[in-house]
């Protein structure tokens, strides 16, 4: 059968054609294409590695920033708490101070009141004495007629004093 008998001419030309094709491609085409492809693959690999690294860096930075923010929040809360505490303390202290002051004022007022009373008492006593002396003087001056008249006089003066007070 013709199909199973390899023709010499065909094999000869096939060999020539393949050899030429191989020599041309092996010299000018394949090494260049393979090199280009591998270089680009390398470039892409490096790019991916770089991107991953950059992403890791960014993730780190983000975590750090988050940490900082959380810390700042805590600090803020702390400061607020502290301020509230301080304010309360201040208010309390002010209240205390005010109470003490008020007490002092009251006490001072009481003292001065007492003094005024005492003075008034003293004055009253002086006045009563004077009055008694005046009465006595008048009584002594009228020490003439009758006892009745003198008694009436005393009474009159006493009434006067009472009316005065």
């Amino acid at each position: 059968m013709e199909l199973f008998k390899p023709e010499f001419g065909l094999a000869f030309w096939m060999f020539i054609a393949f050899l030429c094709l191989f020599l041309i491609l092996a010299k000018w085409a394949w090494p260049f294409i393979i090199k280009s492809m591998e270089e680009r693959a390398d470039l892409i690999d490096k790019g991916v590695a770089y991107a991953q690294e950059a992403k890791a860096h960014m993730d780190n930075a983000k975590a750090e920033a988050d940490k900082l923010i959380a810390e700042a929040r805590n600090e803020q809360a702390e400061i607020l708490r502290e301020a509230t505490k301080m304010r309360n303390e201040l208010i309390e202290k002010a209240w205390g101070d005010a109470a003490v002051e008020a007490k002092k004022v009251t006490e001072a007022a009481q003292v001065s009141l007492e003094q005024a009373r005492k003075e008034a008492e003293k004055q009253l006593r002086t006045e009563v004495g004077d009055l008694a002396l005046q009465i006595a003087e008048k009584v002594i001056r009228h020490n003439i007629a009758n006892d009745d008249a003198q008694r009436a006089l005393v009474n009159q003066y006493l009434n006067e004093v009472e009316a005065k007070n």
Partner: protein
Amino acid sequence: MKKAITAIIAVVIIALMALGYADTAAHRAHSGDGNAEVNPQEIIFEHLGDAYGWEVPFNHSKRIPLPVIVRGQDGSWHAFMSNRLEHGAQYDGFQIAQGGDYNNKVVQVLPDGSQYRPLDLSITKNVAGIFIAALLVLLMVFKVRNWYKKNGMKAPRGFAAALEVVVDFVYTDTIRPIMGKEAPKYAPYLLTVFFFILTMNLLGLIVIFPGGANLTGNLAVTMVLALITFLVTNLTGTKHYWKEIFWPEVPTALKLPVPLMQIIEMFGIFTKPIALMIRLFANMMGGHMVVIVFMLLIFIFGSMFGTAIGGAMTPLSVALSLFMLLLDTLVSFIQAYVFTILSTMFISMAHVHEHHE
């Protein structure tokens, strides 16, 4: 829109392919001696075989002439175009034999009337097909190379991208894992083999010129390819590879006094390339054969049960042939890849070193 146009073009091409097969088959079926009897075997082998001219579809009286180069019995070279030998004509003492030992080959008619088969280096249909395939591969690869040269590190576009997928698959995913450090040294050969076989396979599926020559379904073509792999394997083989063949590490009784292992290993050297040769040849030839048989069903049924039945077979025939053509397209890729990966393995197996074990 673009998709629709592509689809239409694909359908037209496939339809043309099928039409071409049908046309060829019809011509062959009726170009006999007017006898309605169909001889499928003759038609199939004529279609699968070589020819001295390139047939044109839909015009059977014309063939594209190709040069015939022969060396006669007296040692003189003769070169002329094949159209001088058409229809049994004799030129310069040469003619195409009809029947006999040299059926459809150029023979020299000697003065005593006997036929002499000269040394035949004609550019036949298959040789021209091989040249066209080689040229296509050359154009294709250089187009990609120039793209790389111009665009450097950019992501590939268009044809370069299409080819890069294939190169990447064959080189990065197949040759490099198998060969390792030696990959860049043998990659040019293996890539050339892959693209050459693939182009020849696909050209064989296209019916009209410049396709239609059954290239990889021809034993001479696959033989040359296998022979080159055989030479590369054995000429670059390491000492250890030869030691494994002539003095393998098996009990001495198997090596002396009867060199049993050596004989087996020697067989192994030759069976590998022969398997390569037969596998590609049989796959491609089988595919072509089935396509033609499906087309011939029309005429076989026509001659057996009448024209009407034959005509009714047409849709089935066309559908089956289309299916086979698509399958053959797949097989074209697979067989080119198989040839390449097996060549890679054979070559890398000849590069074993002691410490690999």
